[in-house]
């Protein structure tokens, strides 16, 4: 899998777990998980991917990503 395919697969895996919960709870769960465990570049990547249609993403992911805060830019080089 390339990086985009991996990202879609991983994000959908999270959605499939939370899909058993009521919709609002599920969306919040996906958002929280991505926010807590995905690094800034990965979050930016999925935000950009969704902005371009989000092909292949579970609909809970599409909804959850919309609620993700835009990551701050990379810290200044040391």
């Amino acid at each position, binding site marked *: *899998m390339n*990086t985009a395919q*991996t990202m879609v*697969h*991983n994000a959908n*895996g*999270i959605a*499939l*777990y939370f*899909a*058993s*919960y009521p919709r609002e709870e599920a969306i919040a769960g996906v958002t929280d*998980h991505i926010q*807590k*465990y*995905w*690094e*800034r*570049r*990965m979050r930016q990547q999925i935000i950009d991917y969704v902005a371009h249609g989000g092909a292949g993403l579970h609909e809970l992911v599409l909804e959850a990503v919309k609620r993700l805060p835009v*990551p*701050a830019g*990379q*810290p*200044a*080089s*040391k």
Partner: protein
Amino acid sequence: MALIQETDYGTPLRVSDTLVTLEIDGNPVTVPAGTSLMRAAVEAGIPVPKLCATDNVEAFGSCRLCLVEVEGRRGTPASCTTPAEPGMKVRTQSPKLARMRRGMMELYISDHPLDCLTCSANGNCELQDMAGVVGLREVRYGYDGENHLKPGKDTSNPYFSFEPSKCIVCSRCVRACEEVQGTFALTIEGRGFASKVSAGGTDFLNSECVSCGACVQACPTATLIEKSVTEKGQGDRSVITTCAYCGVGCSFKAELKGNEVVRMVPYKDGKANHGHSCVKGRFAWGYATHKDRILKPMVRAKITDPWREVTWEEAINHAASEFKRIQTKYGQESIGGITSSRCTDEETYLVQKMVRAAFGNNNVDTCARVCHSPTGYGLKNTFGTSAGTQDFDSVDAADVIMVIGANPTDAHPVFASHMKKRLREGARLIVVDPRRIDLIKTPHVKADYHLPLRPGTNVAIINALAHVVVTEGLVDEGFVKERCDLVAFEQWRKFIAEERNSPEAVEAATGVPASDVRAAARLYATGGNAAIYYGLGVTEHSQGSTMVIGMANLAMATGNIGKRGVGINPLRGQNNVQGSCDMGSFPHEFSGYRHVSDVAVRQSFEAAWQVPLQSDPGLRISNMLDAACDGSFKGLYVQGEDIVQSDPNTQHVAAGLAAMECVVVQDLFLNETASYAHVFLPGSSFLEKDGTFINAERRIGMVRKAIPPMAGYEDWQITMLLSNALGYPMNYKHPSEIMDEIARLTPTFAGVTYEKLERLGSVQWPCNEKAPEGTPVMHIGGFVRGKGRFMITEFIPTDERTTDRFPLILTTGRILSQYNVGAQTRRTENNVWHNEDVLEIHPWDAENRGINEGDLVSLTSRAGDITLPARISERMQPGVVYTTFHHAMTGANVVTTEFSDWATSCPEYKVTAVQVQLAKKLSQWQEQYREQRRITTQILSQTGAD
């Protein structure tokens, strides 16, 4: 420290609320009821002669040396088999007893070689000692009669010899094999004078013996003795330390002569092992001085260049300068580090500190990523803390033991022996595993239920078990009501009660008869204290975290949490995988499992470390490699970890590393990851450092330096050198100062100090104001998170599916004699038992493919292919094959894929769709590996080194 000789009390400790007071040689003595007279005497400081008694096996009463006199009683009972009774008056010495003891010794010595001066046990022989104790001065029978002095020596075992001519047939070895190890490999063959110890009628190497060393330890003479002692003589000093192999964390006495280890002997006071050991910890320590050890720092510009030995200063400055260059060019987030589960807590803590404070990002991860990260996630979310709930001794109170996805007799052998002992006492056993692991049927142990599920269907099985509990009215309603979040429980109860979770509904997917699942669930729920023990067969799946949650749900629903004998018990793979996680090795959390986004927590670290810290999680190992392939991650510091061999999809790992501009490997050996490194920093073995390891029961055990670091520095010192060169100063003088900092910053470690560890021997976290001497059993009276949280566990089949092209499922794992990537054990005599990885395949699958035992076969998945020899095995179920990843040349992880746990990215090692066919030659990857390895491990002759 001088050689430590532990007191042998002769018979095992008895625990009782009832105390018994008696008189021994005029001294009042009080002991728990059931204590033998021998033990009572020894505890009172009164030695009793003995040969067949030792305190790790039950009394046998055969040597007649421990005879005593009891006032008002006839005869001279054996003190080892006579329990203390109130008011008894016991004499251990009298002229009559002395005569009898001398008489017994005469008989023993009349059939024993008189070669004491040249005997390997000279100076450490109980027979010799007892001859002195009883005052033996003559042997009236002479030495010409029938005897046992002729049998030859069995040297087949690589680590110890068996010399029957020196045997006194005390049966200590046989009893140790039975009672301590539980293997029953030894027996007494013949009767009367013809009685002799036998390894089942063959030599030791070809017997059922697992080389745990219990027999050697029990032997009072030189009959069974370590070859290292025969070669080097007795040690002259002991250092108590903690084993560097599996997560059991056994305590050992390293016995040394000068700076040379003579032998490792399990320490009786070790609370994880109680004086027992396995073949790895007991014998496989020779790697520490193996000729392959790299003892000079090395650098090279390109990974195809030969290594150049340099000074420590040059190596450290080069690494620091490269990391700074990379960050300047590619950004602060372009580098990261990996901590080691084989290094100490203090070393691991320093690596994550350096990454967060000196690199200025959170790109730190650890090898727990690929083993027990789902344990952390699942138990944190349900119970509130990322660790197992019990101590090992808790198993003594278990009535039902459910082992899921673990093979303890191979991977955690010392705890397996403990567990088997409890099973022989009558505890019931449920095994959930695709393979027929040894525990299912082993001497005097037979599983009540084996649920041989198809790989990848764990969650379906745990749901089915819970479904039975919920729908058959077996929920512990009182426990749930008092201890758990009821809204979450009702949500879960409704879900789990749905018919699609019933054993009948999932039978087609799991392959396990519904009736067996129902029976197992009833036994777990109603059989008394029920404990779950599990391993990587639970975690290394796309639903690894879900499965951990599922087990936690089941335990809460049945009230099997918060007391002895129950719980959720992860059997951790590596020696310090628990500690490396505790120390903040994951990219999203600080030590003590606190998220980096928690402002108060982060501020406490910023204040202590005097540097601003990032609030965003960093990259996991797999993410680092992906980012490297994409060009945004360029530098990596790897301490004591070999991701090329241990992580899935080897070719992807290699591609990621090859895309980096500076890889720094700190290790004992030029491991597989070092093939892609630009800087090599020679590390130190566990014998060469001070620090602590934390085992699977959260026990913090001391690691003590037995010999100086061979390459000059302990690993924590090397990390300090690098951090200082990066411009972030670290100036610890001793690992105890690092632990002091950990304690200041980590509430669960707040009460941990080296002084306390020295005093108590070990401590289980949480250790703080509430529990100043630690916490053997967690969640008593309440969960760490407050109310226990049930979570929904929908079974979602993995995307890794069998097809016509890949019709079989591969699972990978470990065996007894080798450890993880084999870097240590492959450099020992353990290769006698396992010198190559083999593919276990069921006879049907083999026959369908024309495969015979030992044939070379190809193993192909969508990720890659390798070849290896086949072993036909009915331990496998049809459709499932198995191999190990201990040998780099095999490349088992060339075949495994990048699919992973949804929550933690723990790889799905246990499910890979594969095909197996007869092969005639090595795979292309294996051929290339040989050549690539030859090139990347070349070292130029020494120039400019220290």
